[in-house]
């Protein structure tokens, strides 16, 4: 062995600590495709059972859609499985270009480049576009991959209280001496399902001469009347300078991400972005399927409409049942439980009732804000959602939390 017993002991103790802190994440094994109902083996060795899935990013139900599978199959046959190459060497097929053009049109921008994931798009953009005389002004709750991307940039880092437009304005004023300013936000924040105030952000950007960058991973495909994203939803299409988003959630769920926006910004990333230059191209099978996905959602808004209906229904019913649901319109529906152990207990009991959800607690969400984050999908039928509400109600009664507010739940269970 190349290293000492000290290292082994150290890491073993770290793991013990994570376990005893109740923070250990256990994987559950799924023995079916992703869908409204899945077959799960949990714990390891238990007999697999069918449960209703309420925690996938499979918003439009496209991850196992027959049309998408068909396009993937055709892609495999005509363009192969992999390219084994970075984009600019021999990793750009005609279909990559076609997908980029389709995304540009769909998102209403000037140009698009694909990345292996939205995570890599976020890792690339700031380092390429901004330098030490520039300012990055980010919402405090932006996605982890954006935080990592900003850390790789030499630009000055500022952040503002979550969705607090006055605080954003202060930061914009503070940075007027910088060369460029870039406001950075998620379109939809994934822990609460709340939506960025993009209209105000765009107005401020104009007033204070700043670019706007948006990570729309939890919105592309279904937010806005035609599913174009948060910018459509907030009525600011054409006013966003850079959008990063993923093909790994609503738009198919396999892999892939992109950066879409002003021509010059995108082209510069094509020339300089480290992941673009050093990372494998998106595989033909994913590109082919994604082209079909965009075609499907452009042709008809059926799926995003159904998702919207399902979301309203589920939110109404859960509120009626007496749960503390953060208000909103997004398919991310956080059921607030505040106490970490309570969240885990409720999730476990729901699983026994055939409802698959996961408890979120520190450090994924702040201490004292534990929740069960449910996600509605267009794949859910009314009966799935009714069963879910019934199960939640039953378990909620058991823990005596129905109709209770935050203080009351904390009083009962602590934080």
């Amino acid at each position: 062995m190349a290293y000492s017993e000290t290292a082994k002991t150290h890491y073993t103790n770290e793991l013990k600590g994570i376990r005893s802190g109740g923070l250990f994440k256990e994987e559950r094994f799924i023995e079916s495709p992703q869908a409204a109902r899945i077959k799960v083996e949990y714990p390891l060795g238990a007999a697999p059972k069918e449960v209703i899935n309420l925690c996938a990013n499979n918003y439009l139900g496209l991850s196992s859609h027959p049309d998408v599978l068909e396009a993937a199959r055709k892609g495999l046959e005509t363009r192969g499985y992999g390219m084994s190459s970075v984009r600019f060497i021999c990793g750009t097929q005609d279909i990559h270009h076609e997908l980029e053009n389709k995304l540009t049109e769909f998102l209403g921008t000037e140009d698009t480049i694909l990345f292996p994931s939205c995570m890599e798009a976020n890792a690339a953009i700031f380092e390429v576009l901004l330098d030490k005389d520039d300012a990055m002004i980010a919402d405090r709750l932006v996605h982890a991959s954006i935080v990592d991307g900003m850390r790789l940039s030499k630009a000055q880092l500022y952040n503002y209280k979550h969705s607090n437009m006055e605080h954003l304005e202060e930061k914009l004023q503070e940075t007027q001496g910088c060369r460029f300013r870039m406001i950075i936000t998620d379109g939809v924040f994934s822990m609460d399902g709340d939506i960025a105030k993009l209209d105000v952000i765009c107005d401020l950007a104009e007033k204070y001469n700043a670019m706007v960058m948006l990570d729309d991973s939890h919105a592309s495909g279904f937010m806005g009347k035609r599913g174009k994203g948060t910018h459509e939803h907030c009525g600011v299409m054409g006013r966003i300078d850079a959008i990063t988003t993923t093909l790994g959630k609503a738009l198919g769920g396999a892999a892939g991400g992109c950066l879409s926006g002003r021509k010059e910004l995108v082209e510069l990333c094509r020339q300089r972005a480290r992941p673009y230059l050093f990372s494998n191209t998106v595989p033909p099978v994913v590109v082919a399927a994604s082209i079909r996905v965009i075609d499907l959602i452009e042709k008809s808004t059926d799926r995003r409409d159904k998702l919207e209906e399902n979301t309203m229904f589920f939110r109404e019913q859960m509120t009626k049942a007496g749960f503390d649901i953060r208000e909103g319109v997004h398919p991310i529906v956080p059921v607030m439980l505040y106490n970490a152990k309570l969240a885990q207990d409720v999730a476990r009991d729901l699983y026994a009732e055939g409802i698959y959800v996961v408890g979120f607690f520190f450090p994924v969400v702040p201490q004292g804000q534990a929740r069960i984050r449910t996600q509605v999908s267009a794949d859910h039928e009314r009966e799935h959602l009714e069963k879910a509400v019934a199960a939640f109600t039953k378990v909620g009664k058991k823990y005596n939390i129905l109709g209770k507010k935050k203080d009351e739940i904390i009083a009962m269970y602590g934080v």
Partner: protein
Amino acid sequence: MSEDVKKLIIDYVKKEYLDEDSDQTIDENTKLISGGIVDSFSMVSLKMFLEKKFKISIPDEKATPEAFDSVNSIMKLIQEFVKP
């Protein structure tokens, strides 16, 4: 260091990290980072504020969550860099 400096920092923390309607109290011993009031990402603003205000430069290795965890520990840190 003076009470003025302490107040300066406490006021900044309140304004920069707390919502207007928050009933969280901040004193020189309140655990800022480990108490979840300031996370390591938002800590950046605090560092920049201190550097600007006291005309110092805090190297990245010293800007640890431990050093920023309370107003008291922050004052200790600044003392290292402020010329008398």
